[in-house]
């Protein structure tokens, strides 16, 4: 029985590799016309010098919306499971982290060093996160990456004890998250009323800053991603810091 299972697994992997490996090894030259088009037109079309941002939030913004939805749904699902787990067990034991079973609360594992460094580092990382978020259209980075950095900054603040910040309360975070999600949907729909269609740029000619829509989307997505990941991570670290 065990042998049969093994043979089945080997056949499965072999058959799949027969199909996948030729595609991976294919030697056809990589197409260039998309690159050439972007080289010539990306800046005039979208106003962004970072062509990846131009695609990510311009030409293919619909994919980005889908990705944000996946994030939202998986965070919601994970949080629902976390809540269910929290109901089942109230006292936390850290048996799994130490090889010999110990019984002490999780927060005792945090040392003074960690707390001090985290709370000092938090604001700086937060600033850096916003930089990455706001300058996504001209330099590498963007809403999503900035958002994740912001999330890590919030986690730092939550770890540290020196600074008591409202930012680490899941209550505030989930409000920011929900508002930015609403804003994202409204921003994507707004084009419908300005005759540029769904996900069209509604403020194309309104301002001198040509990348305005991309900057706007970057900020909204950054806030959305940052807060939702922060909420999840804080919940995973064992409880929110509600004051």
């Amino acid at each position, binding site marked *: 029985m065990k042998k049969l299972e093994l043979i089945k697994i080997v056949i499965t992997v072999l058959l799949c590799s027969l199909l996948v490996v030729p595609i991976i090894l294919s030697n056809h030259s990589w197409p260039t016309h998309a690159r050439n088009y972007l080289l010539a037109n990306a800046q005039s*079309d979208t106003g962004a010098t970072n062509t990846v941002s131009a695609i990510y939030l311009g030409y293919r913004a619909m994919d980005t919306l889908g990705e944000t939805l996946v994030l939202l749904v998986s965070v919601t699902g994970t949080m629902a499971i976390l809540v269910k787990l929290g109901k089942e067990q109230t006292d936390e034991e850290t048996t799994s982290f130490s090889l010999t079973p110990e019984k002490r609360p999780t927060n005792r594992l945090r040392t003074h060093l960690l707390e001090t460094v985290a709370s000092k580092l938090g604001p700086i990382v937060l600033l850096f996160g916003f930089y990455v978020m706001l300058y996504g259209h001209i330099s590498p980075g963007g809403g999503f990456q900035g958002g994740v950095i912001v999330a890590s900054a919030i986690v730092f603040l939550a770890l540290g004890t020196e600074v008591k910040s409202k930012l680490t309360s899941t209550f505030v975070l989930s409000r920011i998250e929900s508002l930015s999600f*609403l804003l994202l949907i409204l921003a994507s729909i707004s084009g419908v009323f300005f005759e540029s269609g769904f996900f069209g740029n509604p403020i194309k000619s309104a301002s001198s800053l040509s990348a305005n829509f991309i900057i706007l989307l970057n900020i909204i997505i950054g806030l959305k991603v940052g807060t939702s990941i922060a909420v999840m991570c804080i919940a995973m670290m064992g409880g929110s810091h509600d004051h």
Partner: protein
Amino acid sequence: MNIESLFLAPIYLPLLAAALLVSAKAFGQAGKTMDSMAFLIGLILPAVCLALLKPAIIAHQSVETVIGAWDTNLGIHYHFDGLSWLLIALHLAISIPVFLYSKSNPSHRESFSIIFFIQCASVAATSLTADLFNLFVCLEVMGVTSYVLIASSDEDGSVLASFTYLLFSATAMVFFLVGAFGLYRVTGSLSYALISQVKNSLTGADLIVAQMSLTLIVVSTLLRCAVVPLSGWLVGAHSKAPHAVSALLSGVLIKIPLFALIRLLLLVTASERIGSILAWAGGVSAAVGILLALREVQAKRLLAYSSVSQIGYVVAAYGLAIEVGLESERGALLIASSLFYAFCHAVAKALLFLSIGTATDALGTKDLSKARGATASLKGSGERVPLTTISYCIALFSISALPPTLGFWGKNMLTYLAKGHGSAYLLTITSVLTITAYLKLSVLFLPSKRPVVVMKTQSYGAIHASYLVLGLLLLGGGVFALPFKNFIITLLLPLGAVEASIMGYSAYSELAKTFLTLMLALFLTAISTNRYCKRLLAKFPVPKARFADLFFGYALALSVMAFQLVR
């Protein structure tokens, strides 16, 4: 409002509803009013938009648009035509009653509705998209919402089902990405139209790479449709999920990817080979599914197996249509009957899941060997009009293809058109066995001598509203079946289908055939409930699906498809 904004409404309006619910939840404002507002925005308004679009699609208007109004090929193309209209209409027809039903369950709070609306948007996007990578994203959104909804049940089994489905389909989606890589590499594009332009001029090694990439994409998408041998995940997932979710998943979500795939299939070379495989796969799914359903003793698992069997009908007709080509008269009729039957099955299966779910909840058991007297239990739990039993009967008639319901027309037209192909025999056998299987399920509603145990009392207002919508669709559809069918054929014309009518089809001979089928099924039921026969049946080994078997089926499907395409 131009036409683009109108047909994209089923995507962005549910998203708006979801966003409103998220905000309401965060600000502590969630409640009945918010729910009804979200219902209006997310489900009713899109339906209104579809109604407004009806003149355009009857005039065969098909619109290709780039999201964000970029005048270049780099943007994401969305394609609107009769097919996408029908798919979105099908989804709305099921999701409106399902949403009503879900409100009867107190454990479905805001997060359930939020995920539900996001799923609505993803279904609409999947049926509209004409871009490979966007299809990937849409399928992922659809998948993630399904995993979460399945796991939202309180049973622990649902978590395992959700986990299995997640791991299987997430792996397949990585294969999809490899396929997208291959196609982008050899064609330099991601939109269907451009891919097909370039692909027709490919030769040699490039063509093989393109065909293999296509295989990966097609099989990974078919996984969501649960065609045998890719169906191992379905039974657990659909039987353990909450009833409303089961209805939605079994009714709609296994069919949308199939029809979304048609745009891609029509564009590529040698699609008739894929068609012939699909025709056979459909027949086999139908037979295997119903055989497994026959020996199942749990109500919802039986329904889930029957879903595998019924999707087989849809896939068989779909595959045959592609094999003979949609330009031919027979192909056009076949694809229309495939879609028509998808509609019949969606409504009937949704109604079955809802009514059986309510009945088993009232009984407190799902075991068909013990559970009896559901009608009395339902009455005990506060149902004044026995609408659950009545709607179960309507759904039973429809899925067994008995007049005067929608299913009678749907299934008979489909088997009539499939005649001549080998899988048609499998389909005919399946229709006899389907009746037997559902007769076995009907014992739930037989009167019981034991005293009625009331599990819990609840109000049946929302539940009855959902029954009424679905039941009326089945009965009304049965009365207006022929105009409905002609309407579908008209809508599918821009796909390349010709104007066609059914030749030599008479309802009287079908009635006679149905009578024969019914008699045969009753006979089989009489035999199979015999003591000796039961003992004999119990000796057959139960197929025990292990995790690795899922992937074995996947690898098998991949290699068969690749062999056919590359040869």
